[in-house]
């Protein structure tokens, strides 16, 4: 190697020598802690998304169908009345399909209580019509009642609204719990990053003081620490987020196409949320490093 080449490599090395030590005794522990917190926070968000989807599933399943109980009057037999009711509501906007339940299906519904083959042939069974609603724009109960009245049918629409609202409330509660858990975890991760950053910075007080005495502006010193800790948090939380994404993918694969189970339906796109964790962690670290550096600097004259 010629002398000129040697000088050039020297020069390149010098240009990138960071003013802050690259290796710092505390960094191993800090990286691990931040990674673990990012991992847990990502899993919590994935679980929250899945819980939200599950809750949505419950309520949409419920509101997707309504049952009519038809009481035959006039000359109609039960099945005739049920058939006419199905026809009447089928035309209502927001109804996808209406089917009269035949006797066999009705018996099947009673089986859990009366047992198979124990149902007397002449037992008067309620005439039921299941109405599948458009899940996006379900027909209102009022419009169904109006259609039945026009067809001169005596039928009651099974009023699920009351207990459906209970289910909705439960679903909302699940969502809220998931969001609160995420927020608490994010806050914990943030404060640990902030704390660790301040610790690391206090350990570098000597650097701060020397740079200060050499005429560095506060902004210059603060930027050094901001960059340093932002990169550290970015890397560490990327490890955690990747691990969480891998975990989520594992659950997704285990659960087959329906997700882990109907209770926790993870979607592939949920895993993308993990990409946000490193950015958030870097932001928190940058801000706390800045405020910690400024606090040390302001203590200097």
């Amino acid at each position, binding site marked *: 190697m010629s002398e000129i080449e040697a000088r050039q490599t*020297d020069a390149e090395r010098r240009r990138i*020598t960071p*003013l802050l030590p690259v290796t710092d005794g505390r960094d191993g522990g800090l990286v691990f802690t931040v990674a673990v917190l990012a991992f847990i926070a990502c899993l919590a968000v994935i679980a929250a998304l899945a819980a939200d989807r599950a809750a949505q599933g419950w309520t949409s399943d419920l509101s997707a169908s309504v049952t009519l109980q038809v009481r035959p009057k006039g000359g109609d037999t039960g099945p005739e009345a049920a058939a006419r009711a199905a026809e009447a509501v089928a035309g209502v906007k927001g109804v996808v399909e209406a089917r009269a339940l035949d006797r066999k299906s009705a018996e099947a519904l009673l089986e859990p209580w009366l047992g198979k083959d124990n149902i007397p042939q002449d037992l008067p069974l309620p005439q039921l019509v299941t109405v599948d609603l458009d899940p996006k724009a379900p027909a209102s109960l009022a419009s169904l009642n109006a259609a039945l009245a026009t067809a001169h049918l005596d039928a009651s629409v099974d009023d699920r609204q009351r207990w459906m609202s209970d289910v909705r409330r439960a679903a909302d509660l699940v969502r809220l719990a998931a969001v609160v858990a995420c927020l608490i975890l994010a806050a914990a991760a943030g404060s640990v990053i902030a704390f660790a950053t301040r610790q690391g910075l206090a350990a570098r007080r*000597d650097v701060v003081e020397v740079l200060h005495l050499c*005429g560095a502006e506060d902004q*210059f010193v603060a930027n050094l620490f901001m960059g340093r800790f932002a990169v550290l948090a970015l890397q560490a939380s990327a490890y955690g987020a990747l691990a969480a994404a891998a975990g989520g993918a594992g659950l997704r694969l285990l659960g087959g196409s329906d997700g882990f189970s109907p209770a926790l339906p993870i979607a592939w796109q949920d895993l993308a949320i993990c990409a946000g964790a490193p950015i958030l962690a870097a932001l928190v670290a940058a801000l706390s490093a800045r405020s910690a550096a400024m606090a040390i600097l302001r203590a200097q004259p």
Partner: protein
Amino acid sequence: MRYGTSPDVLRDISFSLAPGSFHFLTGASGAGKSSLLKLIYLAQRPSRGEITLFGQDVGRAPRDALPALRRRIGVVFQEFHLLDHLTVFDNAALPLRVTEQRTDLYRSDVSELLQWVGLGARLESYPPTLSGGEKQRLAIARAVVNRPDILLADEPTGNVDHAMALRILRLLVELNRMGATVLIASHDEDLVARSGMPVLHLDDGVLTRQPPRSAPGRDTAPS
């Protein structure tokens, strides 16, 4: 001037240094030499009184005006304050680096300066591997790399033998010839006498001016 609630370390001190002058600052250990230098290099604010540098009252200057002033002052600290994780080159270049100058603009200047203080072969070494005298010279190189108007040195010969002390003294005199106002705190009476430079003497927080000492080793009683 005082630290916290302690008694005054320095009081009733009034002096001015002519631009381009060279003075020694003497006094017993604990007399307040370092404290006086700290006031000048703006690491301490006076509890009372006025400090004027470059025609500006720096004692009351706003914080954000200080970095620009510090850049005109080179300091050799009593404890060096070198950064152990930076190479000799990077330590010496620190005052330039904090001004965000491009490395390729000053690389040769810094190398030349380090050559001049006898560290040309140690550019890529780290301070913990340097001897006391080498650290001292590195601290001096860092203090002057910026071509400061004022050069303050706190015991710059405290860690070296007599021959090295004389070499460092010659270096400081040379810098003074190049235009810097120099103030050196030192215990080394022999060195002070050999230099033939005027002396500021601190005793019990009070400063007195003394003429250059003529004979080596002669101690002038403070008035």
